């Protein structure tokens, strides 16, 4: 079975490589600063020990006070996993760095997050709606979007 790495351990390694980017952790998850998403992703992907070459899924959750981006990472070589999270505060004109340059599999899921949650990914080459049509008012998976 895939072994979940300790959040504390991964946070420490992230901070060793990029100081003050991992701000919080629990048993399995690490919270990082949104501005550091890309550099931390590059580190997690390229670090020979961690080797998180596979992005299992990226999604977002609306906690009303903030949005949380959730990255499920797997190392196929080590058979380990970790969850990276990042809080994005605000409701209007939200943006976060795209990780498509690290894991191309993020392509459609980042577009889905933009479509349904309204978080714009900077650096994504094709950042447009994926399920709904252009011009659809609002982002329907937000908690304040009512039918």
């Amino acid at each position: 079975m895939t072994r979940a790495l300790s959040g504390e351990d991964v946070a420490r390694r992230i901070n060793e490589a990029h100081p003050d980017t991992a701000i919080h952790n629990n048993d399995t998850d690490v919270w990082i600063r949104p501005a550091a998403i890309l550099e931390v992703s590059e580190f997690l992907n390229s670090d020979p020990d961690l080797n998180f070459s596979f992005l299992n899924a990226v999604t977002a959750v609306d906690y009303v006070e903030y949005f949380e981006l959730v990255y499920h990472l797997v190392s196929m070589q080590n058979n380990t996993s970790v969850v990276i999270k990042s809080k994005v505060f605000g409701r209007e004109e939200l943006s976060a760095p795209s990780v498509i340059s690290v894991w191309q599999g993020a392509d459609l899921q980042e577009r889905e997050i933009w479509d349904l949650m309204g978080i714009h990914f900077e650096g994504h080459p094709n950042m447009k709606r994926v399920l709904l049509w252009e011009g659809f008012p609002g982002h329907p998976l937000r908690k304040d979007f009512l039918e």
Partner: protein
Amino acid sequence: MAVKTEPVTINLGPQHPSTHGVFRLRVKFDGEVVLDVEPVFGYLHRGTEKLAESRTYVQIVTLTDRLDYTASMSNNLSYVLAVEKLAGIEAPERAQYIRVICAELARISSHLMATGFLLNDLGAFATPLMYCFRERERILDLFEMLCGARITVSYMRPGGVLQDPPDDFWPALTRINDDLPQYFDELESLITGNEIVLARTRDVGTISLNMPSTPRYLAPYFGQQACNGMSAAPIPMRYMTDWTSTYPSAPSATHLTVTSCASRKCARV
């Protein structure tokens, strides 16, 4: 003199292997050369998460049936586990074992369906599919005993399951358990080694373990695949380890690794 050409955009579809009208490709051609492909989808999106916002935790179980109606038990399970984790509830041990049995039965029936339809799509019309469905029907009969429904079961609940299996469930389960291995032998003799199956599947769509070079894949491709010596499926199966520690004779969790005929052993619940 070279023929002057210009790119033309054509819609391929709406086509989908299983249903019409849910998926199309917008393809840019130059002559017969494909320059660009853009998938256009979303017509079947049911907004399950949004529907869930206005329902109670128990009502949402019925929505999870429909996420993948060939694996409704498994979808029930992952949802109720999430609710239990949030609420700090632990289901009784008996319910946990019943859940694993159900999820495994659902998995077997899904594999049967996948195998049957694979052969159907390879041109072996209906016959192997009916072989697969014959056993799948018996699993659906078991689900019917549990809850009255065969496909959209809604059998699991946060905190347990709908009800205890009826008395005649257990002997029926044992009979299926005894029959499946020889059934898989039969199915395997039809498929493995078949020249047409090999010609159309071997070395098709190979995925390198070296992700950076083939990165456009997401989880389901790897859910059950054995990749060069990797000893377990990437998707954790909760309780599977409890199961093996409680019943030492039960198959070990590593049987989740599917390699050709080793998949037969998966079927032993």
